[in-house]
């Protein structure tokens, strides 16, 4: 897929790609097919080398890539019969969290996710994917609806954080998140979480407690964004790369400390390079997870979900 944004470490690839394009334009008049084939082989090697050795900070950049599929892209391409449901029944509808009923491979589900915008206008509308309390309260309401009608819940996490604004505080941002954490710990229906992009702190976790927590290969999930971590601990915005390393915010890091259960592979170069393949993987993965979870009773689901989170943390006892 043609990308509108080229990340720094992708430049060598893009340069080769454009060279091939130029040569292909000349291929009708000149016999240069062998050279083109050779370049294409080179590009494949380069690609697999670059993407195999990405630093954590580079992955953060992929997770934030403006062409990366967002929640509504997954909903449109992985699910059918989606009906978006709006509002928290108390204050307003929050466009930074979308939610609704849908069908996945013949199974009816409730799907909830953070939603970013792709341009200035849609980003203002979506508040850059940063929910206000009413977003979490909409999710709360629909989690209860899902339980009532025996529907499994799928949550897609992709937020730079809960919105740190004046009105958000006035309306109880902390309380809204806290209540979701408690409700999600007692919901007698299967919950599958997928971190699809950015999993920034409480804003992400606010819809993030599940029986299974999955994470896309290039997504990040941590207590704080690397830039903010840099500004607090290093007192400068310049240490984001070090902060990303120190935070161990990648999927391979988090599976080791059991914060996540499964890594979902992305197409080479990231989900945005081949969204169709990504959607296909997502459908297969979610179906597999739900097939297993839907066999369990509500009590078992709650018990196992709690046990999994009780187990989180590392400490010593002398």
């Amino acid at each position: 897929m043609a990308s509108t944004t080229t990340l720094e470490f992708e430049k060598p690839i893009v340069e080769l790609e454009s060279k091939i394009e130029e040569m292909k334009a000349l291929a009708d008049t000149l016999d240069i097919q062998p050279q083109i084939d050779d370049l294409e082989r080179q590009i494949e090697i380069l690609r697999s080398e670059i993407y195999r050795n990405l630093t954590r900070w580079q992955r953060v950049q992929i997770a934030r890539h403006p062409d990366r599929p967002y929640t509504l892209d997954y909903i449109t391409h992985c699910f059918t019969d989606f009906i978006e449901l709006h509002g928290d029944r108390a204050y307003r509808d929050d466009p930074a969290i979308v939610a609704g009923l849908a069908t996945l491979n013949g199974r009816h589900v409730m799907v909830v996710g953070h939603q970013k915008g792709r341009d200035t206008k849609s980003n203002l509308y979506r508040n850059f994917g940063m929910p206000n309390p009413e977003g979490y309260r909409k999710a709360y309401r629909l989690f209860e609806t899902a339980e009532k009608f025996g529907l499994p819940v799928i949550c897609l996490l992709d937020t730079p954080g809960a919105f740190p604004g004046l009105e958000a505080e006035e309306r109880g941002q902390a309380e809204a998140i806290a209540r979701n954490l408690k409700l999600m710990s007692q919901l007698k229906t299967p919950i599958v979480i997928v971190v699809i992009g950015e999993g920034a702190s409480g804003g992400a976790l606010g819809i993030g407690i599940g029986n299974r927590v999955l994470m896309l290969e290039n997504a990040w999930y941590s207590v704080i964004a690397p830039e903010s971590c840099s500004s607090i601990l290093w007192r400068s915005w310049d240490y984001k790369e070090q902060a990303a390393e120190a935070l161990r915010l990648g999927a391979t890091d988090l599976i080791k400390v059991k914060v996540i259960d499964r890594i979902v592979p992305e197409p080479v170069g990231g989900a945005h390079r081949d969204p169709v393949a990504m959607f296909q993987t997502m459908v297969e993965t979610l179906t597999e997870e739900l097939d297993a979870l839907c066999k369990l009773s509500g009590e078992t689901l709650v018990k196992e979900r709690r046990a999994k989170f009780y187990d989180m943390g590392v400490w010593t006892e002398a």
Partner: protein
Amino acid sequence: MAWFLRKNRNITTEQQLREMPDGLWTKCPECATIIYRKELEENAYTCPKCDSHFRIGSSKYVDVLIDHGTWVETDRQVRSADPLEFIDTRPYKARLKEAYSRTDLPDAVTTGTGAVHGVPIAFGCMNFGFIGGSMGSVVGEKFVRAGRRALDQKMPFVFISASGGARMQEAALSLMQMAKTSAFLSELGEAGLPYISILTDPTTGGVSASYAMLGDVIIAEPKALIGFAGPRVIEQTIRRKLPEGFQRSEFLLEHGFVDLVTHRKELKKQIATLLTHLMSGKS
């Protein structure tokens, strides 16, 4: 925790100044009144003149709230590990070592059991003086263990929060303590046991967005800073000064997010009365 910018996080000098000194005479940081230690103790570490509430740690809260001779500390041996081998400008291990020697505390929380006017409770109290009261794996684990004691012995659970939020040096593991503690409170709630959450200055970030805001009854001490994002972060977001009293206890009471704002001198009696009401159906 404050999610975007909180520059003061590791300035220990400020914390040291604001903590209760152990001298015979103390100067109130608000109104500069000189207070004799005995008088301060009798006043539950609040200023007799201006009612300013001093930041105190768990041992003083035990003195204020728990019946004499009933306190038994638990799980002191649970200590922070450094699972991510976190290093910023200093290694996490060095920060921990310094915090142990400076405070003589086991971590940012102390837990145990005791009685409040004869009502047995499981109790936990955070220590802001220990790395800003930050919540890492130890805080989460001890919260759940203390709460489980309440569950096993059918007692109420009372917990005092004082925290800047999740501990950055344990990264995602700190974040997951929000989930762990909240999951436990759903279990405690099903057993019908009361959980009283007391918010003191400051209660922000991941602590406020989990167990602190989940009390059956939530009590705040006067003028405590309580919120999700820190004031500086919000000012940067909205690019203007915050109004006076924003995110203070009285503001939260007005907006419906705490049940009561209670002077520290009245706290013990109020907790006892609340628990008597809430536990009345159990006997």
